[in-house]
């Protein structure tokens, strides 16, 4: 298979539970196939690697028609926490780890994790805001350099 994928660079740009997981699953799936993986966290996607936030990610229960929940119900206090808890339970049954454990699994599997420099500056963050496993804070240009020769996936 000469046209097999050998490298993927995945961009995670959203900070909701459902915005973050697909990128993590894609990156882990790549490593499991022996494919090189970079993950670039930008904008609210950086919550997945932010020590203060990554244990407290929530499903968006408003403005999320896929959930099939009336907007007014989705906006009730505690609704997002409730739906998130249900989803976490289901994921645990399927052996999908919580985000902090997933990030460690990814780093240990050899995936390289990066934060977007522009976003870091915009949100007044520093290296210390992020998990130890972070490979670096890089510019868009540097990201393209790392991604060269592989596939880029935006989520």
């Amino acid at each position: 298979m000469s046209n097999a994928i050998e490298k993927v660079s995945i961009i995670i740009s959203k900070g909701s539970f459902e915005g973050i997981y697909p990128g993590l699953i894609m990156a882990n799936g790549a490593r499991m196939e022996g494919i090189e993986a970079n993950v670039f966290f930008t904008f609210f996607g950086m919550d997945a690697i932010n020590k203060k936030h990554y244990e407290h990610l929530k499903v968006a229960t408003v403005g999320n028609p896929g959930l099939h929940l009336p907007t007014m119900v989705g906006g009730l206090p505690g609704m997002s926490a409730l739906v998130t808890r249900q989803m976490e339970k289901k994921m645990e049954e399927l052996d999908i780890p919580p985000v902090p454990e997933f990030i460690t699994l990814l780093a240990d599997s050899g995936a390289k994790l990066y934060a977007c420099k522009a976003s870091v500056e915009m949100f007044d963050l520093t290296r210390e805001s992020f998990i130890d496993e972070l490979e670096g804070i890089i510019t868009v240009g540097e990201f393209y350099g790392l991604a060269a020769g592989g596939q880029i996936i935006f989520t």
Partner: protein
Amino acid sequence: MSTAVIANYPIEVDAEGFLQKPEQWTEEIAVAIAREVGIDPLTTPHWQVIRFMRDRYLQTGQAPSIRTLGKESGVSTKELYQLFPKGPAKLAARIGGIPKPHGCI
């Protein structure tokens, strides 16, 4: 499904070389498959992962996830990828003579 000759035994395998009948597996076959995928020799930690993978499949009918491998096989995730760079779960399943794992995790 087709028949391949591995270590001089006729073995039922799928298109990607995964054994379809785990009972046909022997250690000689493991060594031959490992060599074919570029792992030579099989060291003690390789065997530990392969046996864990195989035993868990024979007990539960399902191959363990990479998460379970890292937590319960006694070999850390980092080491798993050093031992099986082209994918620990997939390669340990193939060398251990069980069908290809189907999970996404």
